[in-house]
Every structure is written in C-alpha cells, then in structure tokens.
C-alpha cells in the first residue's frame, strides 16, 4: 500500500514548526523527537497531499512522495 501520510525524517527535523503552521488538514503535531503525522477521528490521513509542508520545510525533513503509474496499467 502506498502510504497516506507525509514521510518524516526525524533526524533531519529541527522542530521549527513551520510545517505545522501551514498544514490545512491539521494532522501534523510536534512530538519529542520532531514532527509527527497523527491519525485522528475525523482526519485519518493527510487529505489533500498539497505538498506545502515539503515546500516550506527548511531542512527537507518532511516529504510527500508520489508514485507514478500509467492510466491504462491500472485496474
């Protein structure tokens, strides 16, 4: 399964909080060793994949990876 959450490298995260401040779906929270993506009752995953967290992160710690597929290659 393709993950539904942004990928976070806590080693690289310097806890600046910028990604949390811009995230519209509110799934990012600060944990002890950096940002975490949480699942909550009403938002079980990052709903928009807007990539803004990746864009604003100064250290490249948070990313929203894509998989590339062919349309006719799908079921």
């Amino acid at each position, binding site marked *: *399964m*393709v*993950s*539904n959450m942004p*990928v976070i490298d806590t080693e690289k995260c310097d806890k*600046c909080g*910028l990604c949390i*401040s*811009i995230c519209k779906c509110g799934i990012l929270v600060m944990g002890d060793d950096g940002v975490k993506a949480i699942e909550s009752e009403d938002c079980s995953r990052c709903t*928009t*994949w807007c*990539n*803004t967290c*990746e*864009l*604003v992160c*100064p250290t*490249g710690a948070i*990313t*929203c*990876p*894509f*998989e*590339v*597929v*062919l*349309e006719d*290659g*799908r079921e």
Partner: protein
Amino acid sequence: MPINLDTIRGMPYFSGLDDSALAAVSRYFFEKKAVRGDTLVFEGAPAEVLYFVVAGVVKVFKTSADGKEQILHVIRPGDSFNDVPVLGGINLVSAAAMSAAVLNGIKKKDLEALSKEYPRIALNVINVLSQRVQEMIELVEDLSFRNVSGRVAKILLEHIGTGGGENPRLTQQEIAAMIGTAREMVGRSFRTLEEEGAIKIERNLIVITDKAALRKIAGIIE
C-alpha cells in the same frame, strides 16, 4: 514589542555594525503580525517597506492574467522579501502569509537615511542585491531556457511503477535535485503537464494519462 538587537544583527543588511549602530537601526523597525492568507505586498503597488520574517512563512508569488498563482520563493524566518523594489520603485511580485507570521519592517526612506549615516549598510545592501540578481537570473533561466517541464516529464517516464507501492516513490525535492531546479518549479511543472493533458494528479499518485504526449514534452523522438 521592541525589536531584538540580535535579530537585527543576523540580518545580512546590518551585519558588521556595532551595538550603537544596531540600536539606531532598531529604532526604525516596526513589528507587523499577519494571519494566514494576509497579503503583505501587492504586485504593482509602490514599494514602501522592506520586510524580514521573524516567525512563520511567507510566499512570494506572481499571478498570471488568468488568475493562476506561481510561487517564486518561500520566505522562512531570517529571510527578507521586497528587497529589490524597496530600493527601486514598485513591487514586482506579491507576498502573502502562508501561516500566522510575525514580520519586522523598515520603511524605504528610513533605510535610505540609515545607509547615508552608516556606509556599511550601503555596502551590505549592494551585497544583498547582487545575490538577488543572481537568484533572479537563475529563475529566468529555469523559466525560459531550461525547459523544466520537459525534464520533469522525462523523470516521470523513468519512474513508472505499478501503483503497488513497491516502486521507489518520488518527492518534489528529489525531482528538483535531479534536474537542478527549485522545488517551487517542480510544482509548477506538474501543473503544466496536467494542463497539457499528459498527467493527472490524484493525491499521491501521478497518473500518466497520455504517455505519447508526455514523451513528446520530454523531447523523446519516436
């Protein structure tokens, strides 16, 4: 809230100044708070204030005639925006807060007066401006000569997977690094490729809807 001297010391414009000069500079600064979505600078309006981001994130963008927005830069704490026009004339781009943000601003006329009093500031201004010119030239190259969309198309073609998740996934920053451009440009290229009908973005899947068209954009001759 008074402006912190250390914050000012860290700004490239005021590096190398002694404490008394910094104190003089700090008197001209004012603080501005913004909420997400606030437009801070309007393209085409006279440029009156140079801003430094203290907290939060600001996007610098241009809006096309049909209302599409192109983010040119993301300004993080410690960086400034509106540098070039504040020394010239009108705002070349717009800027808006992407999150709640705190800014330190200094008016154009005050910056000019300070530069006369402290020649070191004038020298710093020249350094900042030459860096900005460099960044602009890189952006112009990306926009006009480098055919970023074509190279993004090529990378997408090289990474076609099955959708099962076993293929290495791509991030915009990886693509940016592979083709030597800014992350902002990759997002723009995705939109261009989507408009051309070659791909469709479905959350975290990039679906190639017209492989032949994508190959053409990538410059692959059949």
